[in-house]
């Protein structure tokens, strides 16, 4: 406790950011330290798990130290240690889990294992002080495309998800084939602004009626086929048009399904989360579609959309308030499901 407030330490190492943060009462960010490895992995064209694990280990303790220092707290003020235990890269996750366990043990405070996806949703509690469940959530990131009903704090009911590639993964793949490079999401977003989104008729994959699931793997094949046939015909590839048309095919399906889900479940708010929530066209389109039905769309600022420790601290706080505790035998679970 510090100044009468509950202090949570959140640790996140599920992919290529080594992050730690201190949050008061689950809502107020006192510090949020993110050490990104993007520049290291760029030369390999994507995240190399073994290298990510090595860098996490080298960085983790300095990141934790900086989070405490910047928050102006000592370890004695900290009331719980929250940590992402899945989903993610197993070798990356275990660095955070080992560190959090050691903190909880050495400082005699509760250990709270957090589902990374709960963390992304909780980023909105930090961004929007008035926000409380219930709401419909749309989680879109490099590893996830999910529509989740959130009836109360610390409860998530997945009503739809991707059957193959996640949206962010599809962006990465198409960015690679049109030569935009890694990380694909922001680069496609930027190129698309200069392109014509109706230039190429990429298929909208709706799946069976009423389904909230997604499938994006066919789109990548379609993009590859398009590029090959254009090259064979000797036509110049307009990268910006490909990016804009490809992006539109993805965000149109996502935003339509998210709004339909909110309508069906009677939710008046859609809360966006995950790295792809920063995609400007997705934000624009979903806001337009939601406004028609008087549904409010909320999202975290770009910094809180990326992997960070503050969102984990917030999710850990609400899990703790709901009576959850993890044992010292907490394991890293790379394919952890939403629940």
């Amino acid at each position: 406790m510090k100044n009468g407030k509950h202090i949570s330490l959140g640790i996140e190492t599920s992919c290529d950011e080594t992050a730690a943060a201190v949050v008061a009462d689950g809502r107020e960010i006192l510090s949020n330290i993110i050490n990104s490895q993007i520049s290291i992995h760029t030369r390999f064209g994507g995240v190399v798990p073994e290298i990510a694990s090595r860098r996490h280990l080298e960085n983790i303790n300095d990141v934790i130290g900086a989070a405490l220092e910047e928050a102006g707290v000592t370890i004695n003020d900290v009331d719980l240690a929250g940590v992402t235990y899945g989903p993610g890269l197993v070798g990356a996750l275990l660095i955070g889990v080992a560190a959090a366990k050691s903190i909880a043990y050495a400082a005699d405070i509760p250990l709270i294992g957090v589902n990374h996806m709960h963390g992304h949703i909780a980023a909105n509690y930090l961004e929007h002080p008035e926000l409380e469940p219930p709401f419909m959530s749309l989680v879109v990131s490099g590893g996830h495309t999910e529509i989740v009903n959130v009836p109360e704090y610390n409860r998530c009911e997945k009503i739809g998800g991707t059957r193959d590639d996640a949206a962010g993964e599809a962006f990465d793949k198409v960015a690679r084939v049109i030569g935009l490079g890694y990380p694909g999401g922001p680069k496609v977003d930027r190129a698309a602004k200069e392109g014509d989104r109706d230039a190429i008729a990429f298929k909208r994959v709706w799946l069976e009626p009423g389904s909230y699931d997604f499938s994006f793997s066919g789109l990548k094949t379609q993009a590859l086929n398009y590029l090959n046939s254009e090259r064979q015909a000797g036509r110049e590839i307009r990268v910006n048009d490909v990016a804009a048309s490809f992006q539109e095919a993805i965000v149109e399906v996502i935003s339509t399904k998210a709004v339909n889900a909110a309508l069906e479940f009677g939710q008046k708010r859609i809360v966006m989360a995950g790295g792809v929530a920063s995609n400007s066209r997705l934000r624009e389109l979903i806001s337009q579609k939601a406004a028609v039905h008087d549904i409010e769309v909320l999202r975290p600022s770009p910094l809180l959309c990326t992997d960070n420790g503050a969102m984990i601290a917030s999710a850990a706080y609400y899990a703790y308030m709901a009576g959850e505790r993890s044992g010292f035998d907490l394991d890293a679970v790379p394919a952890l499901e939403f629940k």
Partner: protein
Amino acid sequence: MYILAIETTGKYGTAAVIGDDGCIYSASSETEMNHLRDIISISDEAIRKAGISKQDLTHIAASKGPGSFTGIRIGVTTARTLAQILGIPCIAVSSLEAMAERVMDAACDAGASYVVPIINARRHQVYAGIWELIRSEDSARCTLRPAGEERQYMIEELLDELKSRQQNDMQKDGVLTVYFTGDGIDAYDDIIHDALPKGSYFEAAEEIRYQHAENVAEAAYHKAECGRTVSYNELLPEYMRLAEAEQRLKAGTLSEKIKKAGGLL
């Protein structure tokens, strides 16, 4: 002085506490490769057995490798973070050095000249080191002296090196025997058998063949006495091997596709 030592570079994680009386209290994981789940409970068990509380600890030691990359990371991260939160220094111990210490008395009794721990690194590779056994005048006790770089070897290359040492020595007084330890024995027993003359080598019994925190604790105690401690953020793993992608980048064999995507071309 109370040192908590952690060893998670092999199959079974272990933890041990050593105090100034030289007594060692240890605890072991009962499940293979269960390091992350068990690390705190076995550390706590060792601390309780020693009759102290975690606040009484003065140092945290870790086996820094070589060995299982995942295991190394769990042990080193735990040691670093415990030290950071408890505000005490760390001690780095080589897994190979601790393994050599583990078999020192047995190797001495067997009359061996060298102790060679070998950790299986797959595809005919081992992480290994060479220690010479220095005998006391009455030959009853031994100490260890480093006699070869700790590094990654092809098993055949290591055996050639040991053979040439044996041949050189033959010209002097005729007997030079090697005492192997470590899970490299389990992987390469046949190759060792074919390469070295019968009677010129011993293999450690299974009870003392594998990594154990007791020996990390002993080695750490000596280092602490000599002031060889580091702060938590200086405790680093010894993988003895670059990540595969880094090897390829260095060798210039990273695939063209990846280079292009990464903007290298």
